[in-house]
C-alpha cells in the first residue's frame, strides 16, 4: 500500500512540476514528460494488477490537468503499460541505453495514440498541426531529460553501492527469482 501511494505521490509531483514549474523555464514542447517514465517503470517493475490500477489513476490524473476529456490519457497510459509489459518479455530491459530507447519509443507511441484518438473521436484536425511539429521537440527533450536522470540514478547507485534499483533488474529478479 505504501508503494502504491508513493507512485501516486510521484505521479502528482510529475504533473505539478509539468504544470507549474517547467512552463517557467521551457516552452510547451520542451517540457520533459516525467509521467511517461513512471508508466514505463511501472510496466517493468510492478505486478500486473497494481501496474494497471496505477496506470488508470495516473492517466486520469493527467486528464484532470489537461484540456482533454477524461479517458484519453487513461487509454494512452494503459496502452503504453501493456506494450512495455509485452516487450519486456523479449528484451534485456536492464540495459540503460535500452531504457532510453523505451522512453523514446514510448514518446512516439504516446503521440501516435493521442493523435489517433483525437482525430477519430474528437474531430480535432488542428491538433495534428500542433502535435506534429512538437513531436521532435518532445523526443529530444525526453531523450536529454531521461539520459540525465539515468546518469544521476546510476551515479547514486555507484555511490551507495546499490545496483539492483534499476527497473529492469527489479523486474528480472521478481520474474525469474534471480
Amino acid at each position, binding site marked *: 500500500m505504501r508503494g502504491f501511494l508513493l507512485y501516486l505521490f510521484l505521479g502528482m509531483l510529475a504533473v505539478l512540476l509539468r504544470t507549474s514549474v517547467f512552463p517557467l523555464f521551457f516552452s510547451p514542447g520542451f517540457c520533459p514528460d516525467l509521467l511517461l517514465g513512471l508508466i514505463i517503470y511501472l510496466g517493468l517493475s510492478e505486478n500486473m494488477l497494481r501496474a494497471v490500477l496505477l496506470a488508470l489513476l495516473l492517466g486520469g490524473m493527467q486528464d484532470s490537468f*489537461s484540456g482533454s476529456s477524461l479517458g484519453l490519457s487513461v487509454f494512452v497510459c494503459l496502452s503504453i503499460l501493456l506494450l512495455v509489459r509485452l516487450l519486456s518479455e523479449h528484451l534485456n530491459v536492464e540495459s540503460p541505453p535500452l531504457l532510453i530507447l523505451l522512453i523514446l519509443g514510448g514518446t512516439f507511441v504516446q503521440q501516435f495514440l493521442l493523435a489517433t484518438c483525437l482525430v477519430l473521436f474528437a474531430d480535432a484536425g488542428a491538433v495534428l498541426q500542433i502535435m506534429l511539429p512538437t513531436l521532435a521537440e518532445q523526443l529530444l527533450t525526453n531523450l536529454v531529460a531521461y539520459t540525465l536522470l539515468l546518469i544521476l540514478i546510476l551515479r547514486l547507485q555507484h555511490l551507495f553501492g546499490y545496483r539492483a534499483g534499476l527497473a529492469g533488474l527489479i523486474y528480472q529478479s521478481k520474474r525469474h527469482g534471480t
Partner: protein
Amino acid sequence: MRDLLKRYRNLFLAVALLLSILLLYSYNLRQRTATTFFERAVLTFAAPFQAAIDGAADVVNDWWQHYFWLVQTEQRNSMLEQENRQLRAELQQVEEFRLQNERLRQLLAFVDDLDRPALPAQVIGEDVSSWARTITIDKGTRAGLRAGFPVVAAEGVVGRVIKVAPNSSRVLLVTDASSAIAALVQRTRTRGVARGQGAKLTLDYALREADIQIDDLLVTSGMGGVFPKGLPLARVVSAEKDEFGLFQRVELVPTVDFSHLEEVMVVLGEDR
C-alpha cells in the same frame, strides 16, 4: 471455446479494458464542460499544492534572475552588497506590487467597460500536455464560477472556463485547437470564426472579397452568447487569397501574451 478463452484470457481482458476506457472517453467527450467526480477530486486535492509550488517557483525564479549572477560581486563587497541586496529585495517587492497594481487596474478598467461583474483570479498552472492549451486559475465553484464563463485579461480575450472544482478551474485558451470563437474585423466588420492553432489562430470563413489588412484588429462578435461583443481577440498577421475558393486564408496572433499571463478576470455570466 473455453480453451480459447483460457488461453487468451489476458489478451481478452486487456482488449476489453482498453475498449471500455475508449467508451468512457467517448462518453466524456459529449459532456466536455461537465467536471467528473474524479477530476473534481484530483483538482481539489492538488489546488493547494499547485498554488504553493507556483509561489515557491516564482520566488526561486525571481531569486535566480535577480541575484544569482551577483555572487562574485557579493564576495568582493560582502557588506555593501548585502545591504544593497536587502534594499533591492525590498525595492523589487515594491516594484512587483506596483506592477501587479497596475495590471489589476488595467484589468478593472477593461472589465468596467464590459458592464458585467467580474472576478479576478491568479494563474497557478498550465496544461500538462504539449498539444492542449489550457491554464489553471485559483478560483472555482466556491467563488461562483461555472463552466462556460469567459476569461479576459487587460489585452483581450483569454478563453473560457471548461472545468470547475471548488477552489480551482481550468480555462481553455483561445489558441487551443478545440477553441472556436465568432469574431469580426473591427475596421470592416467582416465576420469569421477564429480557431486556435497552438500559438496562433486562423480566421475561418472570411469571404474572399472581404477587405482584410495586416494588423487589423479582430474583436468578438457576441454571437454564441459566451463572450460579450467587442472584446479584442487577435491581430491579423497574414491574409492570402488563393486563385480559387470562396474564402481567404487569414492568420492571427492573439492580443494576449499567454507566456506572461499572471492575473485574469473571469466575466460572470449575468448582466449587471
